């Protein structure tokens, strides 16, 4: 176990900005993408109900 403390963990031995910058953006985008798709799906369903179902 190489982390003495939480703060130590977040400091990443001075590379915190870069490491968390990478992992953070990665996490954000990879969570955002499916959400966007979900939203698009909702729109599609709404469109079908409003304009295509008789």
């Amino acid at each position: 176990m190489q982390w003495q403390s939480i703060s130590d963990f977040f400091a990443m031995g001075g590379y915190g900005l870069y490491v968390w910058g990478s992992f953070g953006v990665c996490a954000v985008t990879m969570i955002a993408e499916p959400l966007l798709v979900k939203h698009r799906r909702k729109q599609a369903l709404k469109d079908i109900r409003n304009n295509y179902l008789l």
Partner: protein
Amino acid sequence: MINLFKYSAPSTFYPLAGKLIPMFWTLAAVLGAIGLYISFFVAPTDAQQGQGYRIIFIHVPASWMSMFIYCIMAFWSLLGLTFNTRLSGMMTSALAPTGALFAFLSLWTGALWGKPMWGAWWVWDARLTSELILFFLYIGFIALQAAIDDPRRADRAGALLSLVGVVNVPIIYFSVKWWNTLHQGASVSLTKSPSMASTMLWGMLIMALSFWAYTIAVALMRARTIMLEREANTEWVHHLPEVKGAA
């Protein structure tokens, strides 16, 4: 082949994909958790690069995915142009944004890694440059499809483009390497760090697998959405529970 055609009918593929998606989400989550654990708690501190190197655990898988996905798109495109199955077009356009995302992540994480390692956000190294170009190819594909409004045409145009692209990618990569060596490279470049500890390899592999699962899950979701948009006037869509449900 036969049942490929069977499943390539949206009406059959849609529910099938619906079943697969949750499986792949869980897979992605589990593998991702393990991968992250390895990358932060198992993998030792690197001798030269301190903790900074941990970026590798997303950087490299992202780079790999960005290249794999383009090849898969090309594969679907070939299928689409030869057998012209509607499914393949939908899969291709469903994959593109995710591929672009990974290309972007490779660039982003790479840049964030480069700053501490090389003291520069960016160097014109062969691998970096060709990744950038790959990103452009994705953007071009997405732009083209968005600019054509008849979906059938958009599919076929996109398919042709990605095939032309995939023929060119190796040429581009090779030429960029040549270019770089001709100029004896940028002041710094990616050095294969001598012995990548096996834990590192494991971490990267597991992360890569998790990204795979993620890609499949998202692509299937998007493909289903595209089906809804395109087949909006067909019977089978109107009989879907999610459509009838709230109607």
